């Protein structure tokens, strides 16, 4: 079974670009998170808690002291994350609409895969997402996606 660290990293890595653009993490730290997410090696919980403070805060809000299990982390991103965005929690209060749309976690069905691109059916339309984090997606699989990235099979 995957660790809470790896599940958390896969769902939160696509946000690291935003943190990099905001100057909250260095290019070096970004590259470390990227290679750990792509290789599946994961990173330490301390690093994740330091870098992704908003997601950790929301995760704790939902699950209290039992927040750090693979099940809690997955359930947060699949079932609770979008509600925080809709409610305008924290930085989402000021976020433009396009950003709120992008930040939501969605489920989609895989149609095909070509190199780094996974084509999915979502909301009645086809869309290509980055497949770097999900190497074994097959047509027919249901996957989650976040900020343009395919995250995992569910």
């Amino acid at each position, binding site marked *: 079974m995957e660790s809470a660290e790896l599940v958390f990293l896969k769902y939160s890595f696509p946000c690291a*670009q935003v943190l990099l653009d905001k100057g909250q993490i260095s290019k070096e730290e970004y590259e470390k998170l990227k290679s750990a997410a792509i290789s599946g090696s994961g990173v330490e919980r301390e690093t994740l808690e330091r870098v992704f403070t908003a997601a950790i805060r929301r995760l704790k809000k939902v699950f209290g002291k039992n927040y750090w299990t693979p099940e809690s982390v997955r359930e947060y991103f699949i079932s609770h994350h979008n509600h925080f965005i809709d409610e305008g929690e924290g930085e989402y209060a000021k*976020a433009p609409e*396009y*950003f709120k749309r992008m930040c939501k976690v969605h489920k989609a069905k895989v149609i095909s895969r070509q190199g*780094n*691109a996974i084509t999915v059916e979502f909301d009645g339309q086809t869309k290509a*997402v*980055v497949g770097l984090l999900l190497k074994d997606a097959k047509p027919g699989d249901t996957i989650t996606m976040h900020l343009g*990235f395919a995250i995992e099979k569910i």
Partner: protein
Amino acid sequence: MCMAIPGKVLSVSKGKAIVDFLGQNKEADCSLMPCKPREYVVVNAGFVVEKVPEQEALASIEMLKNGKC
């Protein structure tokens, strides 16, 4: 705020776009989401992952320039 800064596509050639982010030009892979010059896009890990309506993009860039984020 400065969330997912939108950039303006300057040119596209062979699946690669040159995108202007606040005056800084960066290359991005647009094979997943084909885009055209003058469109506004969000780039994540080197890939164009989203197109942003011009009005929303300009409003975000304006906020950035005014230091409101």
